[in-house]
């Protein structure tokens, strides 16, 4: 779809960016040494740190990715909210206080606190870098997705813009400014998401979401025995092509010189063609949106009820809902979602999004994305279990979350700030289900990018709210990326250069090395953010969680709770967890789709956690048992 910038959106965007930069400049003056740069000197109040935790955590994945996934596949998107939040239980009950007690700058310090091992320093430093970069990719993708509708700029410009601003922030001020940026945007995100949900509930539901919502057409058809459409019930359309894709049949019709694609539904012996949305890349290099150039604006926003049922009666609209009514009406009604298929027809590369009327009861339970019900296989169920496992164990192994435990003065503050974080994040995640489902039925979806669902839902309620929400979401990305880059730069300057290589840097030199590392990691994130442009950000974050959970968590847990853990066991576990998770991701079906490969992916699951997490634990136990220190015989 076409996005045009509005002056109010641009104005608010510029204001938020300037505010963030202002905070950075202000706190840059207070950053004098490495302790201040990497950990804010442990001086942050627990309540501020708690909301900053929420700011760190409620990244592009939460606001853009989860809401977008719920808007396209219903409850399955909400599973991410549940898993992301449940992960905080591990952080609070198991990791927070001990980690605070053991570490100094980075989580490698905690792992290495009793060993002083080069192996741990190297592996933990590399793992922090890798997980940070994995987590940075979806943030950058989200940044690009936001800038397009907000400022009318291409995706890659958004990625470069965020990368540049964040590199500047991190290279000037470090953890203090990152904390206050996170505090500000975490608070704003929760408040304005709540406003959006209140508006969704007050607005209610309607069969026709807006006055200018596109009415999808249908045409009766005659079909012969082999499924070919031979005639149409009425003009002005003429059949000019047909393609069978799996069990689906698509028909190309022409009207006034405009070619569009339609999907055949046999409809119990009364065949009908239903209009689709299509993007066609023609053999001569043109790209057509519903048969016309993009500028003609024929590529519509979608998502609507096909049946709206209130108390057992079909109605046209209903307003002022309470939260329970919101769900029970969706459960009883039927919603038109848009499924997608790619195929080639006469040299043209065609992507269609066709209407798929889905009962509300299926939308409000798992199954549309994660095949645990109809059409489920063992591997599809394992895929679901693997994701839930990775989300549960990933949170407390994320470097940018772990370093936040070193910004508060003591263990008690670490605990309290985690509880503030859980409350704020939990409340926000409850809102995601309302926002995602609200976007699904209010005709705001851009089928090309599910990531834009929540901001486009805000646009439905006015440009001002859209501008505020988008600007806050942009600040969300800025904040999270800042935290990740601080974590990554800490890994380079502290874990690898200072600890592992033993390079004697002055305090100023260490900060300088951290800043150079920040620039390098930021540049890498920009490149990867452009490459992964079309991938759902929450899916990408799920993978980052799997890498973090596999590489870091077994080491943290076993160090804290198993006395036979050795330094070699920890180093081997981090290495195997990280490499196995990355390898299995690279061999997964989703990545093969990204490679545009027609071959079957060697690893059947999209999320590697169910294999790589136990493997990492097993390696730690086996290597530790094999490398126990020799006991000195006593006489």
């Amino acid at each position: 779809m076409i996005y045009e910038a509005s002056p109010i959106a641009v104005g608010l965007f510029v204001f938020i960016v300037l505010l963030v930069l202002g905070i950075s400049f202000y706190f840059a003056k207070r950053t004098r040494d490495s302790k201040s740069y990497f950990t804010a000197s442990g001086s942050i109040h627990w309540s501020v740190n708690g909301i900053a935790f929420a700011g760190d955590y409620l990244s592009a994945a939460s606001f853009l990715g989860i809401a977008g996934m719920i808007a396209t596949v219903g409850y399955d998107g909400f599973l991410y909210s549940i898993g992301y939040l449940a992960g905080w239980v591990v952080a609070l009950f198991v990791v927070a206080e001990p980690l605070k007690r053991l570490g100094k700058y980075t989580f490698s310090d905690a792992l290495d606190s009793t060993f002083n091992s080069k192996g741990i320093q190297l592996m933990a430093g590399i793992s922090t870098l890798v997980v940070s970069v994995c987590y940075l990719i979806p943030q950058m993708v989200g940044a690009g997705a936001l800038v397009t509708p907000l400022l009318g700029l291409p995706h890659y410009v958004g990625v470069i813009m965020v990368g540049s601003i964040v590199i500047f922030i991190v290279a000037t001020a470090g953890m203090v400014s990152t904390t206050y940026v996170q505090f500000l945007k975490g608070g704003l995100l929760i408040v304005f998401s709540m406003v959006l949900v209140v508006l969704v509930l007050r607005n209610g539901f309607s069969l026709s979401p807006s006055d200018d919502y596109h009415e999808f057409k249908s045409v009766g058809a005659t079909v012969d025995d082999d499924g070919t459409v031979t005639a149409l019930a009425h003009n002005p359309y003429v059949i000019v092509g047909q393609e069978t894709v799996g069990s689906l049949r698509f028909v190309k019709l022409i009207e006034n010189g405009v070619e569009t694609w339609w999907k055949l539904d046999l409809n119990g012996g009364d065949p009908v063609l239903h209009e689709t949305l299509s993007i066609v890349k023609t053999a001569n290099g043109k790209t057509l949106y519903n048969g016309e150039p993009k500028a003609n604006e024929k590529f519509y926003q979608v998502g609507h009820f096909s049946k709206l049922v209130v108390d057992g009666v079909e109605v046209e609209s209903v307003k002022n809902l309470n939260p329970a009514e919101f769900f029970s009406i969706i459960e009883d009604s039927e919603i038109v979602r848009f499924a997608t298929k790619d195929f080639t027809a006469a040299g043209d590369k065609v992507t269609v999004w066709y209407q798929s009327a889905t009962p509300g009861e299926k939308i409000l339970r798992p199954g549309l994305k994660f095949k645990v019900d109809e059409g489920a296989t063992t591997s599809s169920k394992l895929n679901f279990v693997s994701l839930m496992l990775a989300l549960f164990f990933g949170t407390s192994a994320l470097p940018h979350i772990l370093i936040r435990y070193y910004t508060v003065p003591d263990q008690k503050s670490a605990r309290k700030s985690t509880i503030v974080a859980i409350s704020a994040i939990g409340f926000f995640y409850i809102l995601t289900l309302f926002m995602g489902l609200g976007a699904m039925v209010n005709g705001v979806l851009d089928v090309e990018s599910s990531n834009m669902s929540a901001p486009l839902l805000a646009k439905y309620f006015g440009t001002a709210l859209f501008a505020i929400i988008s600007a806050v979401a942009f600040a969300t990305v800025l904040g999270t990326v800042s935290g990740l880059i601080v974590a990554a730069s800490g890994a380079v300057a502290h874990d690898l250069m200072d600890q592992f290589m033993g390079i004697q840097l002055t305090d100023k030199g260490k900060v300088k090395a951290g800043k150079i590392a920040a620039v390098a990691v930021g540049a890498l994130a920009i490149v990867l953010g452009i490459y992964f442009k079309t991938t759902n950000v929450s899916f990408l974050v799920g993978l980052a969680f799997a890498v973090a959970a596999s590489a870091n968590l077994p080491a943290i847990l076993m160090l804290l709770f198993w006395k036979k853990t050795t330094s070699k066991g920890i180093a081997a576990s981090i290495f195997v967890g990280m490499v196995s998770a990355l390898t299995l991701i690279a061999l997964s079906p989703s990545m093969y789709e990204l490679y545009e490969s027609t071959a079957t992916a060697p690893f059947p699951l999209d999320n590697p956690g169910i294999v790589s997490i136990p493997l990492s634990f097993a390696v730690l136990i086996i290597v530790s048992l094999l490398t126990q220190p020799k006991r000195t015989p006593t006489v």
Partner: protein
Amino acid sequence: MHHGPAVKLESDNAADPKAKLGLVLFFVYSLVYVGFIIINTLSPKTMGESIVLGLNLAVVYGFGLILLAIVMGLIYNIMCNRIEKKLNIAQETVD
């Protein structure tokens, strides 16, 4: 360079009992979470059954897991405060 904490931490006599309490609560929550995964994988249709106020089990269980984390976090904090008060103040008195 040593690996000590970023700030000077006071000794915490309550560390062990707090860690044990944390583990107990962690296992309780894990059981509820595993229950959610098991129902979803072995009996997904159960998730569609209406439970209360027209809400199905999937919505109630999902919101329940989020709210349970918040409630257990608050309980954990209250209990930790009590343990700290008891053990750390007792230690100060001995000192």
